[in-house]
């Protein structure tokens, strides 16, 4: 990494524990601006926890996290978040458009209500993910892939600099996966930083240019072409990593 690269996310000595059991242990991580990065690791490696800690949803017991050199609390407007699809109740009485509008709530702040400007931004985001035709559809009547696109549109409407996505390809069809990765690549082209919790090791070299191996501790981080190798996979997944790749 050269010194003139800007660091989007800087994590130092981060430790997170649930009930005194560490799930992330002494993580140091610098994510350069403009990368499309995968976070990979086995189940229970703390991938989602890492994202949630950066977003201040989970309080760490030690360490510091900085977004462009400042605490997250002052940098919220620079960050967009796509949680795991399964983390919400899709039977909630609301429409696709309304869910996307929620992405604008951060810039609105407390009490202020969304207006025409927010609606226009939400409709544009829906169009970008190819879901404009479904804007008034109740969210439970969307397929898994469509629900994921709605979540992506909600993040796009935030017009952030850094995007965090927790398993955006889980339970989506191949077409949606391609559509999502194309949008993520476009974001990177526009100079945005995109960080994705990812499960399918086979697609890492095709989709991403940066990768972080995580298993409670940080195993390695860097450009995919330099560090995505058997050695790091073995360190992260144990001796059976090849089974994981072939799945």
């Amino acid at each position, binding site marked *: 990494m050269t010194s003139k690269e800007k660091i989007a996310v800087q994590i130092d000595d981060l430790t997170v524990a649930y009930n005194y059991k560490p799930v992330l242990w002494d993580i140091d991580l610098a994510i350069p601006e403009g990368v499309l990065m995968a976070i990979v690791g086995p189940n229970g490696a703390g991938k989602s926890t890492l994202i949630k800690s950066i977003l201040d949803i989970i309080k760490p017991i030690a360490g510091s996290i900085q977004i462009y050199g400042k605490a997250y609390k002052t940098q919220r407007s620079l960050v967009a978040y796509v949680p795991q699809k399964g983390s919400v109740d899709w039977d909630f009485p609301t429409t696709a458009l309304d869910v996307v509008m929620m992405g604008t709530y951060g810039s609105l702040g407390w009490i202020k209500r*969304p207006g025409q400007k927010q609606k226009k931004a939400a409709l544009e985001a829906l169009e970008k993910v190819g879901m404009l035709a479904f804007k008034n559809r109740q969210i439970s009547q969307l397929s898994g892939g469509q629900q994921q696109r709605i979540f992506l549109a909600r993040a796009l409407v935030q017009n952030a600099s850094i995007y965090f996505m927790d398993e955006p390809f889980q339970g989506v069809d191949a077409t949606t996966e391609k559509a999502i990765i194309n949008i993520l690549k476009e974001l990177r082209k526009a100079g945005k930083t995109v960080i994705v919790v990812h499960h399918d090791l086979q697609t890492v070299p095709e989709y991403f240019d940066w990768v972080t191996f995580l298993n409670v501790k940080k195993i390695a981080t860097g450009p995919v072409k330099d560090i995505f190798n058997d050695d790091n996979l073995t360190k992260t997944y144990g001796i059976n990593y090849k089974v994981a790749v072939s799945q």
Partner: protein
Amino acid sequence: MSSAQIEIQLIASLVAIACAIPGTFLVLRKMALITDAISHSILPGIVIGFFITHDLSSPLLIVMAAASGVLTVILVEFIQKTGLVKEDTAIGLVFPVLFSIGIILISKNANDVHLDVDAVLLGELAFAPFDRLFIKDIDLGPKSLWVIGTILIITVGLLFTFFKELKVSTFDAGLASALGLSPMVMHYGLMTVSSVTTVGAFDAVGAILVIALMIAPAATAYLLTNDLKKMLVLAITFGVGSAILGYWMAHALDASISGSMTTVLGLLFLLVYLFAPEKGLLSVLYRQRQQRIEVSLLTFLLHLANHEEKEERHVQHLNEHINWQKVQATSVLNLALKNNMITIDNNIVSLTDKGQHFTKEAIDYIITNKNSEIEHMKDRFFLFRG
């Protein structure tokens, strides 16, 4: 109608509205059980407040009750966080303890105070008009009307102010937190409002039936709409409707008002549960039946598409070969005919162009699972709906 009758119905309606608003969010947050807990565990707060003021409509009672309601939630969450028991167990552990403290306090001091367990559990709306608020000898109406009216105005004010925050923290607490719209504040705010409303409704309907007023209207509304605002409006409508209908039912039967209100709420839910257009039981059963027929239709069309030879396409053969009951075979055949997908000539069934096209589309859909391609078919057929 006498003025007392009007006052009772007015109080009941305000109670119903004040309950339906937090109730809607509790139902959506899957927290119906916590209402049960709160409605019981506010008892020690009310009793202690009553010991201090000797006035059942004193504001101090409401403050004390709200505090013990929020304490319930904090205790439940604390026990749950230890990871030793699940949430429902934690709820079951906390509220009986607090409730029994209230019961013991009442029974120990039963000789000194006019507060008995029956009134606490069931309330008595019929007596509400007799306890009136006077300022300098001017009759300002029943005290409970003022209490619940004030609570309702605050609740509605909070709802309008924080609607967006409530919605996003209910739907996606993670996002709300990341956006800086503290879901914790909303959570405890909602718990406080629920506790305060419970106390306000307490006089009228008692600790047990207030649960029905919070949960039943919201649960009924949930079955009828896919829009949060409409759900709120419907829940309020059902609440008020049941309150007034319940009052007149009690009048006709000479029975308990709160009991009658709850019965009407229950009957209303049952009706909607059975007959709601989309989510109702009958409509779900109908849809399942249609889906079954459509799967059969597709199987049938696929068989026709796969077989050029005439003997495979004879009506008689189809009955035997696909091995359907005669009734089903007839309904499938009729459905295909009605949609111009087949023609029958001398008992030989052939696919029309439309039938061929439909079969191909359907197969493509099943293989590729691309939603966009069958979007236009969704209105006509159940099979492809989520």
